[in-house]
């Protein structure tokens, strides 16, 4: 007999994290991300880990950063208002090269906005949400199974590149109960962390290399810092060192986009229109494609799984033969600008809702038909 379950994205994020080996969580209550905090408080101590409710979001991400350097695999989860408070520590995790998974369950903003209202308003915010403008990795699941597998992948990427990695969901994905075949979940390998017990904590040559993580209490003493630093984490203003450090922070990600890039393509030969969606809007994209093809018309689609860095190789390839791109988003066109940047002379149209309702296939076809 087929066995299924009735579950939601927040639960799947938790299970994906546990499957990847997460053993530390700190978070502060906020709708619609609280389900992750509460589940982690139950699940982590059971498996020997630690989950704690911080006194605020700043403390929560701060404790995650500290815990990682003492040997944990850490995750935190919040929504837009909490990301605002994470901002400075996101920069610290970038500069300190601290692996960390950050889940942003998007709700309608700005400010308190709509606590129980779906949105995709943070797609540029997570990209540019800390000072300095360095590359950020962000994954956007489209369903419950991907909430599970992308969260696990975020842990792998965080270790691979020693940086914070975002998982971007939203109120609808996170809290809508959905039917899932138990067989649909992929098996997950626990994350392998490259570590060392001696040597400098940082390395800038070659610029794109990522040195293994040093941990407190394991081997020789080690230092970490959020200030501009040399390879031993001593503060420096020496231009050649500072330049090498900052180029390294960019090159380790920008030089390896092929390892991060992930999209789902459904290209139909002869189609001149491409629907490009991400996150929860992928559902309406799939429905619009099915409806169009059932009517005998041609339509292609691309779902972006790795929002940041922009999957430019896949996107450019998918644009061959396409004259028109339609980008449905639960914002006023925040990711559309990335598409426009690569679209050349093609027409780029948006389908946008910011009223707390999901985009429907009919909304898309009104523009794309």
């Amino acid at each position: 007999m087929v066995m299924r379950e009735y579950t939601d994205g927040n639960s799947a994020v938790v299970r994906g994290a546990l499957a990847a080996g997460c053993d530390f969580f700190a978070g502060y209550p906020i709708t619609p991300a609280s389900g992750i905090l509460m589940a982690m408080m139950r699940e982590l101590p059971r498996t020997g880990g630690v989950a704690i409710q911080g006194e605020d979001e700043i403390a929560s991400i701060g404790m995650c950063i500290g815990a990682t350097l003492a040997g944990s695999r850490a995750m935190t989860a919040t929504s837009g208002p909490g990301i605002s408070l994470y901002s400075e520590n996101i920069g610290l995790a970038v500069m300190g090269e601290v692996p960390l998974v950050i889940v942003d369950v998007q709700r309608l903003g700005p400010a308190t906005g709509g606590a129980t209202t779906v949105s995709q308003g943070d797609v540029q915010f997570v990209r540019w949400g800390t000072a300095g403008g360095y590359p950020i990795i962000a994954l956007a699941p489209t369903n419950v199974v991907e909430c599970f597998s992308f969260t696990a992948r975020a842990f792998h990427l965080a270790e691979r590149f020693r940086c914070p990695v975002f998982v971007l969901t939203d109120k609808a994905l996170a809290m809508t109960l959905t039917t899932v075949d138990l067989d649909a979940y992929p098996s997950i390998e626990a994350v392998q962390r490259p570590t060392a017990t001696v040597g400098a904590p940082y390395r800038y040559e070659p610029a794109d290399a990522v040195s293994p993580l040093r941990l407190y209490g394991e081997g020789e003493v080690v230092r970490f810092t959020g200030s501009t630093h040399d390879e031993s984490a001593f503060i420096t203003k020496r231009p050649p060192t500072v330049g090498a450090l900052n180029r390294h922070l960019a090159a380790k990600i920008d030089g390896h986009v092929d390892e991060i890039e992930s999209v789902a393509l459904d290209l139909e030969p002869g189609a001149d229109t491409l629907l490009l969606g991400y996150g929860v809007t992928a559902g309406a994209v799939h429905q619009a494609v099915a409806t169009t093809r059932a009517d005998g018309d041609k339509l292609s689609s691309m779902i972006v799984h790795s929002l940041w860095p922009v999957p430019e190789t896949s996107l450019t390839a998918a644009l061959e033969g396409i004259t028109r791109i339609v980008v449905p988003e639960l914002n006023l066109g925040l990711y559309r600008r990335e598409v426009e940047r690569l679209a050349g002379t093609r027409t780029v149209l948006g389908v946008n809702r910011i009223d707390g309702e999901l985009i429907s296939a009919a909304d898309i076809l009104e523009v794309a038909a």
Partner: protein
Amino acid sequence: MTTTVIPLATYRNDSPYPFCPGCGHSTILDRLDEAMVMAQIDPTQVVIVSDIGCAGLSDQYFATNAFHGLHGRSVTYAGGIKLANPNLTVVVIMGDGGTGIGGTHLISAARRNIGITVLVLNNLNFGMTGGQHSTTTPEGALTSTTPEGNLETPLDICATVGVNGAAFTYRGTSFDDDLAKRIAEGIATPGFALLDIWELCTAYFVRTNRFSRRGIEQTMQELGFTPGVHHRRDVAEYADRYRAAHAGDAAKAPSGRRAIPTEFGSALRDPFTLVVAGSAGAKVRSAARLVGEAAIRSGLWVTQSDDYPVTVKSGHSVSTLVLSPEPVPLAGTAVPDALVVLSADGLAKARPMLAHMREGGAVLLVPGLGDVTTPARVEIVDLESGDVPIGKASRALATLAAAVKRLGLFPVEALRGAAGEGPFAERNLEAIDAGLRAFS
């Protein structure tokens, strides 16, 4: 590769301090070094976490592990380190600035009694950024941002963390003969320890206030900020308490996956949208969830999105279930094929849907909600017509059981199957049976 000698004769490295002539930082860091020598701790098991400002440079002069993070947040990193590896000795070095911007972290670390030792290098102003006033600047003191004298009351750091549970607090000065001993006592304390160490900022505060060692002593006296040990409590450390509290958790079953067998069938051929509209606190979502699970037991694919105001037990609670023979992704919702209204709150929220419903649709209402206008078929579900009274907590499920039977989407047995699990099984099954009797 160097070999670690335990204990070290000094925990300092070879770098000379960078501080101004006469600044108290150098003396206090020397006392910390002596304290670590007294404590005879393995330097590889010590993490010095520094804050920002001149005090934030401190970690660079020790041969221990170190972390240099953001202003005011040093206590949070230290807490994470201690929670992850309770064997590490974690010492925070912050200035008085850090006690202001990171005040909530200090209070929370004290309340938890997380096992870290915080040294506040308290020179009564911001030195690195130009002598601005801080949380500890005495009233009337001149700083670059209080040219007419400070108007704010200075923070009593020891009292603040002490009243909130700190295991050890001490107030002293960089001139104290026993400072190293006091720091060692802080390090030896299992819970949260804080030392408020007053000192001279020769670049600013000394200059603008003609301040001196004697000034420190006088100011303490005037403020009633007595020197010495203020709190010494025998409390368990948080990371230890956490692990003890969860010692039995390994035996607990994971609460995640709940497998639902697809044991029944359904005649449904197209997606069907069922909206359940009631009041928050009336078990609308949990009743709708059982209907969803019952549909899954009948081989259908279900999504359930719940809408409610930010309040908890007031206002509406609306669950939208989409039941389909094929998987349906989340997307903009369609017009309901059936609408079950459980209360006036629910009707207020669902009313705009009524006019858009199809002629073949169904609206099922509890009695007393007044007239509704809709092309759909309207029926009243009167639970009071049954022989057994139905409790408030059971009414949503009882009404939905009646609706399931009337709509014929899947067998009522599937709903009994879904309801027959979990701690509320008995009550839920009674509710279902009562609903079916009332609406037979």
